[in-house]
């Protein structure tokens, strides 16, 4: 080849240099666009590439009883999770975890299925691992790089089944709940109150989740916690102070007959606060923490005694004789009844009204009775006549005014409304015909279309124990400066109220239906009831609603007890109410609680009770 002239070479070189410069320029521009023009966007992606946001669960607020005892608090629990990874590596990790955590094959498959549906979230393997397992895993950390151990607060209920219905329970939020407006701002895996007080006060008990950033590499291995960006600590939920007397509830759980169904409600007369709310049979809310075992859940749901059913607040029973007091209160308010007055018709065991002949429960008859005597003996014939004097219109109107067709307003998510005719149209709606005047006879003795919750009956008796007004029964101590005002009023003067209480006092006087449940230290008065079911072929429900307080003072506690198929209010229900009231008051006044309580127990044990019949006149 001839040697090219310098001019030729220079020309070729210049072209080559231009091409070179252009191509290098193209590269520079490409990098300028990526790094300077679009740099911020890529920087963000780089951050999200390597940073995983992990929520720090907030401990729920502690729940205290009225004396500051802990009812529900939090203990640390450890969860074992796996970081998001392809299914194959998840499977491998689970296989190696299997012997350590004792996982079953089926469960592993279930977890993998779950991981497939939600690939971005860490996979929760064990929600509440044994401490030893966690310690082992911590030691073998290097062998399990994709395992993530997390401390989560776990709810603990100190009273167990005694407060199951009242407290409710907590659980992981469900997909359906996440979509509710109530749970706006909630995230998956958060633990929420599902029932009872936990649900009622969810908003304040929950607290605020914290946030933590951890750095992961391309295969999802945790490289460490990332300090560069502020992590927000979790804010614990607000504590909740209850009116409940924890030891009283435990005591009630202890003395309530084990094989019985029923409920106990104890209210504080001073402010209507709930001292105890108990429903039997019960369940242990601790079983629900961290997810309830499926077998146990099915068992609880299939159990014919319905342990999950809160009888104290949702159960409705015919109030029977306990409602006679309400009839008396209405008659006194209307001025159609004088306390000392004896009804014109004596009790002969039955009462004729038009063509209708109604019986008294005592076939021999009670003879002539005043209000106190009629209450003491629970005479039906007396109250038939009270009912006639009031008239059906007035009874329906006044009964409704006293809230027998409304809920009490307790601070629980679910409460049953009492069944009571709010208007005369009630019969029309329910049975298709207008009521006859003699409906008043049934209603006056607490029968007919009248079903009330134990809580409602207790609230009504609180009004009797006070000045005729009753506030809504509240479980939690109100944070407001002033307690809520009374819901309604009996509109009775002091004399009339005292007359009713005098009647109730006769119930526990010698010869009264609940005499054997009287107490040494406290003035216990009240009313028994026996509520027939349906046609009266099955055993009747046993009622007792009692008021108790120091001798010569105002009643301080109201206890309502219902025992399903307990047959006798005086034998089954009254002793429980008496012992519960005694237990609460003894502790309130510093009297030891380990001695014999009721007169019945004195007789059974052969210990003399010189105080028997104190402050009572013998009923005739």
């Amino acid at each position: 080849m001839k040697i090219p002239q310098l001019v030729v070479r220079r020309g070729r070189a210049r072209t080559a240099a231009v091409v070179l410069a252009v191509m290098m320029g193209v590269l520079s521009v490409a990098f300028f666009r990526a790094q300077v023009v679009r740099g911020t966007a890529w920087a963000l992606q780089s951050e999200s590439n390597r940073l995983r946001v992990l929520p720090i669960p907030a401990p729920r607020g502690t729940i205290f009883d009225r004396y500051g005892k802990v009812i529900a608090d939090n203990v640390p629990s450890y969860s074992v999770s796996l970081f998001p990874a392809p299914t194959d590596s998840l499977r491998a990790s689970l296989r190696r975890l299997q012997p350590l955590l004792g996982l079953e094959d089926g469960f592993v498959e279930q977890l993998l299925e779950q991981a497939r549906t939600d690939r971005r979230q860490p996979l929760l393997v064990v929600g509440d691992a044994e401490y030893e397992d966690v310690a082992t895993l911590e030691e073998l950390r290097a062998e399990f790089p994709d395992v993530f151990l997390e401390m989560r607060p776990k709810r603990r209920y100190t009273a167990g089944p005694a407060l199951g219905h009242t407290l409710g329970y907590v659980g992981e939020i469900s997909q359906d709940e996440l979509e509710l407006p109530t749970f706006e701002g909630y995230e998956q895996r958060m633990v929420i109150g599902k029932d009872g007080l936990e649900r009622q006060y969810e908003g304040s008990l929950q607290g605020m989740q914290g946030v933590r950033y951890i750095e992961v590499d391309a295969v999802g291995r945790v490289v460490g916690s990332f300090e560069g960006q502020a992590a927000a600590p979790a804010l614990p939920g607000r504590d909740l102070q209850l009116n409940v007397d924890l030891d009283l509830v435990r005591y009630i759980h202890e003395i309530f007959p084990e094989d019985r169904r029923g409920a106990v409600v104890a209210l504080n007369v001073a402010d209507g606060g709930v001292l105890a709310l108990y429903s039997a049979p019960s369940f242990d809310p601790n079983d629900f923490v961290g997810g309830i075992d499926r077998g146990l859940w099915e068992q609880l749901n299939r159990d014919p005694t319905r342990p999950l059913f809160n009888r104290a607040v949702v159960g409705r029973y015919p109030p029977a004789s306990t409602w006679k007091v309400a009839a008396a209160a209405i008659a006194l308010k209307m001025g159609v009844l004088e306390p000392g007055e004896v009804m014109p018709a004596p009790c002969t065991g039955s009462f004729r009204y038009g063509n209708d002949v109604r019986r008294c429960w005592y076939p021999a008859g009670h003879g002539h009775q005043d209000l106190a005597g009629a209450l003491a003996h629970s005479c039906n014939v007396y109250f038939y006549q009270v009912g006639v004097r009031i008239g059906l219109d007035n009874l329906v109107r006044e009964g409704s005014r006293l809230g027998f067709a409304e809920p009490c307003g307790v601070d629980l998510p679910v409460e049953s409304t009492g069944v009571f005719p709010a208007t005369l149209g009630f019969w029309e709606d329910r049975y298709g015909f207008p009521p006859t005047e003699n409906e008043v006879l049934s209603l006056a003795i607490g029968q007919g279309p009248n079903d009330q919750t134990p809580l409602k009956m207790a609230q009504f008796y609180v009004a009797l124990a006070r000045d005729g007004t009753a506030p809504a029964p509240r479980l939690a101590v109100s944070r407001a400066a002033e307690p809520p005002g009374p819901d309604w009023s009996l509109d009775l003067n002091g004399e009339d109220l005292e007359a009713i209480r005098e009647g109730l006092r006769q119930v526990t006087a010698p010869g009264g239906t609940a005499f054997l449940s009287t107490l040494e230290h406290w003035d216990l008065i009240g009313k028994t009831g026996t509520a027939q079911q349906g046609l009266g072929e099955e055993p009747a429900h046993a009622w007792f609603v009692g008021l108790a307080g120091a001798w010569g003072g105002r009643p301080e506690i109201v206890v309502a007890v219902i025992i399903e198929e307990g047959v006798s209010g005086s034998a089954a229900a009254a002793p429980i109410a008496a012992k519960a009231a005694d237990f609460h008051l003894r502790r309130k006044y510093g009297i030891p609680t380990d001695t014999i309580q009721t007169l019945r127990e004195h007789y059974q044990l052969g210990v003399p009770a010189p105080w028997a019949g104190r402050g009572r006149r013998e009923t005739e």
Partner: protein
Amino acid sequence: MRWFRRWAVDVELVGVALALSAFGIAMIFSAGVLNVPSPVTQGAWLRQLAWLAISLLAFTAVVQVKPAWIEWVAVPVFLVAVVLLGLTLAIGTGAGTAEGVEGWIEVGPLRFQPSEVAKIAAILGLARLLSARDEPPASLRDLLAPSALIAVPLGLVVLQPDLGTALAFVGLLFAALYWAGTPPLLLFLLASPGVALVLSFDTRIWSAYFIALVGFLYIYRYRLYLAESMTVVLGNLAAGTIALPLWNSLAEYQRNRLLVFLDPALDPRGAGWNLIQSKVAIGSGGLLGKGFTQGTQKRLDFLPEQHTDFIFSVVGEELGFLGVLGAIVLFWLLLFRLVRLAERSRDPFAGLVLFGIFGTWFVHIFVNVGMTVGLVPITGIPLPFVSYGGTFLLSCWTMTGLAVRLAGET
């Protein structure tokens, strides 16, 4: 001291090459700084340092060789290289991050890539062939012999399959042909079947291109033989026709690489991963970068092949746009120096070798740097002087030696 005068005969080229080698070792060191250290990248910089020492020895040796010997040795070297390439197909193994490419030959503890030898051999062989001509190539027929010469090693490399190195052969062929005085029109016609192949992914675009080509040939008919025009038309037609079977014959990963070049989101966890993560790394580096060894994308193992093919992503992430610009300027100086040396050289063989080296490195640099920002499809091709790899560093320094020695002979 004679050897040193030879050594330092072109301070600019050697200086830039040394600077790039040092820069490469620093970046390989950084690529080994991971949160979860990997045996592959940890200490790679030390091995590279050792290879640099070997490379400098080789360079020193090469600059002692008389230019006439170099010219003489071109043919035997070329033949040996072809034999080695053939041997590689039979007994070659994969290595390191390029497991899929069986481009290595192991001789006892030594392992090297015959394709690197072949590149040098092709440069020398082509220079020898073209410098033997009296006139610059003036027709397609004149291009037949050089093309055939390159087609042999190129074909063997494609079979490995190592498309990146194959591109380098194309680069050196065109660069050498250009320096030999081939009219750009001829070069275009030589390249046109390749263009047709690329454009054939869309029938309409290919048809428009084909019609334009035929029109072009008609306008310039007086400058071409009829047979040549026909060959070009047939070549383009054939390229368009074989595109589909060729596409189907590609390995799946090769097809995916081309597909994700058009849309990385197609397979973000698979074939698109490299490109996406590389772009994130470079983009997040911003103007000033995250600092030497501080790149998070790299540190957390998001970057693939970060000490070999994707080392420039580490540069982008850690040193930012300014660092990238600095590196590009170094490469520009390197290539521009080769052009200057060729311009000064009065020996046709020397000029052709210099331009062959220029073409090879240009393809390596442009494709490697370009693929990290998504400018060109991802091809397994290393960055001269910078990427980790012993044989490649050795070959780069041998080329530098050849360039310096031949350029100094004026």
